[in-house]
């Protein structure tokens, strides 16, 4: 027994319980901070105990969903999984999450950990957990006011990976920045991406970043662009191109807002199909990432398939609630790429329903709302339904839609929440469905408003 570690775990668990009892929410920052004050090596000591090691999941978009999928797959395969929740993806939150699942003697009760890491915290998290597998999803221009430039993030990631000689790197090479970043680590890298022409966009969306070769600075040419800057690319300047795919998704079928399926093609395997109760191309990427990581862990296709089939949408990632006889579908939007995908989903499924877009500019949303102008909202102008905007920067959203060619007569700026929710619901006919697209803190406010009105599905507690 390590008395210092044991004390750290005890302090973390007790303070977490106290915070919950006091009704301060599920905070993990303070317990994790206390644990690392008592024992600065707490995280590395705890993660070293895991017999099957750690998987660290990082990327701008899809961390939470992918980590959940992978954890569900591992549970299906009979493993005891330690897992951190969304929003606890800094070193402190991860420490608290593992402490929560440890005995008071400092013994971790689990075999393997699936840890979602924040972009900025990634180097510290991998340094302390020495993961067996690092799963890299994508690097988008998200909340740059928090992280500084994309190049800086890419550089610190590269340094952190080089300092991890034992880890396998499972990486989405449809992202040119990640492909370049892991190029020198090719011997221990497992690549994944889409082998599909039908999902390709006609042109690169405006939110696309990193469309410039990281090696020579020449703009990249895309044989196919799938989602933002993710695609099959090559550089006319130096010949850099998407590396061959070890695990690929093909024959992708996106079935409206409810389901998706695709075929997994991996070296030395018969192709096999996965089917998931989630929608959108970004979830194809999330599922494919989970598949690739699970394959790197040696999990059989049947178990992976079963795990994915058991995965449900996380809070605010396309969920449906009933309120006053109306159906509300809630989709979290965090950045232009996410917003583009929601617009693509609504317009491709020909959904003509009133929309409420809630934009906040608090720290967790990103204080700069100029990202609204990087999203391609022009397709919405073609639909016949009204759009309402609200939140702290609802007026900015309305203005963005006006310049996207959306008719001003069908555009209305509502108040902040909860007023915006009541006004929006009153605009819906009984039985009608409305779509609500909130940013992160607007989603929290929306959840509070719905709970006050007696609508609180059990799965918000997770």
């Amino acid at each position, binding site marked *: 027994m390590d008395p210092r570690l044991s004390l750290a775990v005890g302090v973390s668990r007790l303070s977490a319980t106290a915070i919950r009892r006091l009704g301060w929410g599920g905070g993990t920052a303070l317990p994790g901070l206390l644990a690392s004050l008592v024992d600065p090596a707490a995280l590395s000591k705890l993660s070293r105990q895991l017999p099957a090691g750690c998987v660290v999941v990082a990327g701008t978009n899809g961390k939470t969903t992918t980590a959940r999928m992978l954890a569900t797959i591992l549970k299906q395969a009979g493993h005891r999984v330690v897992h951190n929740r969304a929003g606890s993806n800094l070193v402190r939150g991860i420490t608290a999450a593992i402490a929560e699942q440890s005995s008071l003697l400092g013994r971790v009760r689990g075999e393997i950990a699936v840890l979602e890491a924040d972009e900025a915290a990634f180097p510290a998290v991998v340094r302390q957990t020495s993961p067996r597998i690092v799963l890299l999803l994508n690097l988008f221009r998200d909340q*740059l006011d928090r992280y500084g430039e994309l190049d800086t993030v890419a550089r610190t990631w590269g340094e952190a990976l080089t300092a991890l000689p034992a880890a396998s790197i499972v990486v989405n090479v449809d992202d040119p920045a990640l492909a370049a970043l892991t190029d020198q680590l090719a011997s221990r890298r497992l690549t994944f991406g889409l082998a599909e022409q039908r999902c390709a966009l006609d042109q690169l969306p405006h939110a696309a970043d990193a469309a*410039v070769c990281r090696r020579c600075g020449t703009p990249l040419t895309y044989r196919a662009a799938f989602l933002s800057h993710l695609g099959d690319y090559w550089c006319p300047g130096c010949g850099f191109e998407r590396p061959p795919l070890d695990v690929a998704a093909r024959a992708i079928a996106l079935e409206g807002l409810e389901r998706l399926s695709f075929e997994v093609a991996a070296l030395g395997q018969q192709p096999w199909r996965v089917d998931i109760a989630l929608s959108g191309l970004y979830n194809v990427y999330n599922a494919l990432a989970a598949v690739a990581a699970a394959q790197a862990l040696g999990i059989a296709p049947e178990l992976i398939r079963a795990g994915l089939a058991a995965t449900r949408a996380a809070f605010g990632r396309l969920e449906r609630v009933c309120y006053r006889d109306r159906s509300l579908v809630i989709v979290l939007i965090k950045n232009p790429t996410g917003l583009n995908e929601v617009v693509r989903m609504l317009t491709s499924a020909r959904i003509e329903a009133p929309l409420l877009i809630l934009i906040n500019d608090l720290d967790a949303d990103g204080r700069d709302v100029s990202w609204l*102008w990087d999203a391609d909202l022009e397709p919405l102008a073609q639909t016949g339904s009204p759009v309402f905007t609200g939140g702290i920067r609802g007026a900015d959203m309305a203005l963005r839609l006006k310049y996207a060619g959306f008719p001003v007569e069908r555009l209305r700026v509502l108040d902040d929440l909860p007023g915006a929710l009541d006004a929006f619901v009153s605009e819906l006919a009984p039985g009608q469905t409305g779509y609500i697209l909130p940013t992160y803190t607007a989603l929290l406010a929306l959840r509070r408003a719905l709970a006050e009105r007696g609508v609180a599905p059990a799965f918000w507690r997770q």
Partner: protein
Amino acid sequence: MELTICWLYARTMNIYGDRGNVLALAQRCRWRGIEARVIELGVGEPLEPGRYDIFFWGGGQDREQVAAAHDLQGPKGETLRCEIEEGAPLLAICGGYQLLGRFYRPQRGELLPGLGIFDAWTEAGSRRMIGNVVVESEEFGELVGFENHSGRTFLGPRARPLGRVRIGWGNNGEDKTEGCRYRNAIGCYLHGPVLPKNPQLADFLIEAALRRRYGEIALLPLDDTLERVAQSSAVRRAQATR
């Protein structure tokens, strides 16, 4: 009538919604029945004199900024300088603004040459200046935007600032100036993007372009109710957050 907008380094220097400025220019032309064409001009692509009516240049990351600076050392930069001297309207934000000054001095490495259209220079700083900005401009009234830069720009004796910061850091966080003005060129640190919420700036650029191409022409007024609502909500937000 028709105007051609030249979007300098559109693929490589377009950060924090800068493209919204191009959208604003194009839409405000179209709503007045003026045809607007947008041509993107990248590194290595020549600038044809007299072809363009309005220039826009956004911000970018270090690497892209270096590529653009080198691209403008030569006939392309000379053409751009002549166009501006002859009254072509231009808006440059952040990285583009910095490269229209005399030089950019990075933390390490060699001086990055600018076009010297503005009597100004920029030094790399260690502190990032981030947040909502409100500027008072004698020429344009109250302007609102969002700044995000570590470069500190200083104005020389011949430079005229765009305005004075009421809320925010501005050019350098010291002298309360923000942006720079020269003939029909405007450089500033205002992302946001700046034109949709400050339509008087967009109309200034459009009017200057029309005058240059077609002679004296009165600009039709537009209904800017929503623009004003967004502008004042952004100003309130700036007051609350700084």
